[in-house]
């Protein structure tokens, strides 16, 4: 089985974020980057599929688009067990919308003719959760999202999909297909010294974005970034137990929308 895993390098989620001077993106100086966690689960699912298939020549290829620094995350993926990596060199991803980015990825994926394309459910920075679905559309492949588990069956694959409120569903699809993987369906493996050493000999090929596809201007544009009004400090609710309880329930309903 040939599996392509599209991953994204995102700012580390523990980092404090500051809006840059232009107000359109975050200040990336001094930031640490890491592999998007749902993509790490997608990679893990791909590696598990490869390990389950034994030695039938299965291959896991990781793919990512972005500037030079993305190579670190690709090498991390190689260290965890991917066989080779493709790096679409692009410094201007911010000026593309989800469709534009998916077009770049699709152009790199098509020549590989994979059996399965996996991506994480959504990214930890933009959080749109669309790249995988758009990829399916561009590649003309069947797809499903929010997948926790993938099994190979005779007619293709059977997947376990998460639904709202504790419900699940299994879906059968033919391959080739595209899946977006939900976090938590599998246990992430840690990077090992052996993995890193072996990764030294694995192929990491860079492709220039410009050569891949011509870009139409984006139809959806992020105009401005701002800080949300609500600050994340503890709101203490005062008064008698009855009063505090009532106030809390009100906050939970309307503000936190957790009830």
């Amino acid at each position, binding site marked *: 089985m040939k599996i392509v895993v599209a991953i994204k390098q995102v700012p580390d989620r523990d980092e404090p974020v500051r809006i840059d001077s232009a107000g359109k993106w975050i200040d990336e100086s001094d930031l640490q980057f890491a592999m998007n966690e749902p993509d790490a689960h997608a990679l893990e699912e791909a590696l598990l599929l490869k390990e389950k298939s034994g030695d039938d020549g299965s291959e896991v290829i990781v793919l990512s688009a972005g500037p030079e620094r993305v190579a670190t995350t690709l090498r991390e993926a190689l260290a965890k067990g991917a066989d080779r990596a493709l790096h679409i060199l692009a410094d201007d991803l911010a000026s593309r919308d*989800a*469709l534009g980015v998916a077009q770049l990825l699709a152009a790199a994926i098509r020549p590989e003719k994979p059996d399965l394309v996996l991506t994480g459910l959504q990214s930890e920075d933009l*959080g749109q959760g669309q790249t995988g*679905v758009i990829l399916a559309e561009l590649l003309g492949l*069947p797809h499903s999202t929010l997948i926790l588990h993938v099994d190979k069956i005779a007619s293709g694959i059977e997947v376990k999909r998460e639904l709202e409120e504790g419900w*699940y569903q299994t879906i059968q699809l033919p391959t080739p297909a595209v899946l977006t993987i939900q976090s938590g369906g599998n246990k992430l493996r840690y990077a090992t010294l052996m993995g890193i050493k072996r990764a030294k000999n694995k192929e990491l090929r860079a492709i220039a974005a410009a050569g891949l596809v011509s870009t139409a201007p984006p139809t*959806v544009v992020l105009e401005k970034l701002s800080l949300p009004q609500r600050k994340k400090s*503890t709101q203490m609710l005062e008064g008698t137990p009855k009063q505090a309880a009532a106030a*809390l329930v009100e906050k939970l309903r309307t503000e936190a*929308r957790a009830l």
Partner: protein
Amino acid sequence: MNNVLVVLEQRAGRIARIGWEALTAGVQLSGAGSLTVAVLGTDTEAQATEAATRTSGKIVRVEHALLAAYTPDGYTAALEQIIQSESPTHVVFPHTYQVRDYVPALAARFGTVLIGDVIAIESGPVFTRQLMQGRLNGNYRHSGKGPCFLSVQAGAFAAAAQAEGAASISSFTPVIDAAQIRTRPSEPFRAEAQTVDLGSAQTIVGVGRGIKSADNLPLIEELAAALGAELAASRPICDAGWLPMERQVGSSGQTVAPRLYIAAGISGAIQHTVGMKGSQCIVAINKDPDAPIFEVADYGIVGDLLEVVPALTEAVKAAKQ
């Protein structure tokens, strides 16, 4: 002038509440322009009747045998055709798992991108959504000739109120071939009944040493029942045998990230907080105003557990009426 199409979603035979919220957003967007509501399925009479109670505009029943169960191929094909037929300027969806599963593909067919999980619409229109896991807000604008696709976050808009007047209901039958439907979904099911599944619980009430004695546990259990929540505990409670070990949350127990975590009588020692700090909303109830748990909480009440918890149970029951 905006021509807005709102697509509702059904759950267990009724229109989902979040669908009414999308309708409100659609009404706001349409302004002086026109509003159409779409329902999809095999037999949508019940849905349409329900929709008619909340809008006096157009309702379109999009029906086809192949829309009996949701599939991305089926719904994308159907909507593509209704959109081509209605030519809306904006198509509004509720931001649900189902919408996330197919609308990006639908938008791509129209050469555009879904603006998803919108929390506010300002004049422009400018759509606001959250980035960086809620730490930043971004303002988005749509340009280009095709329709603008957007989905709204649950709770961001009020559910549409009851409407007077009669809505006009029409039918639309899309052309879908069985060969187009490439995925075969099964009936939804629940996970095997486990004794304790803290990992998938949406709401958790965690109890700590502030409970003082096992005799006071029923108070907490009532709160959990009122909330539909699972019970969890910090280590000393499990060590003392007041609750089973499998309910332990913390560094030597489970790690949970529910939508709501109520920490009752938990001091907030790191051995516990590492297990629940990922919860979306944390409420702390503790007698000690300096308890470290207040550091990680979004809301806090300083008071005696034995008084606050029953009061909270009452308040929750009242709200759920």
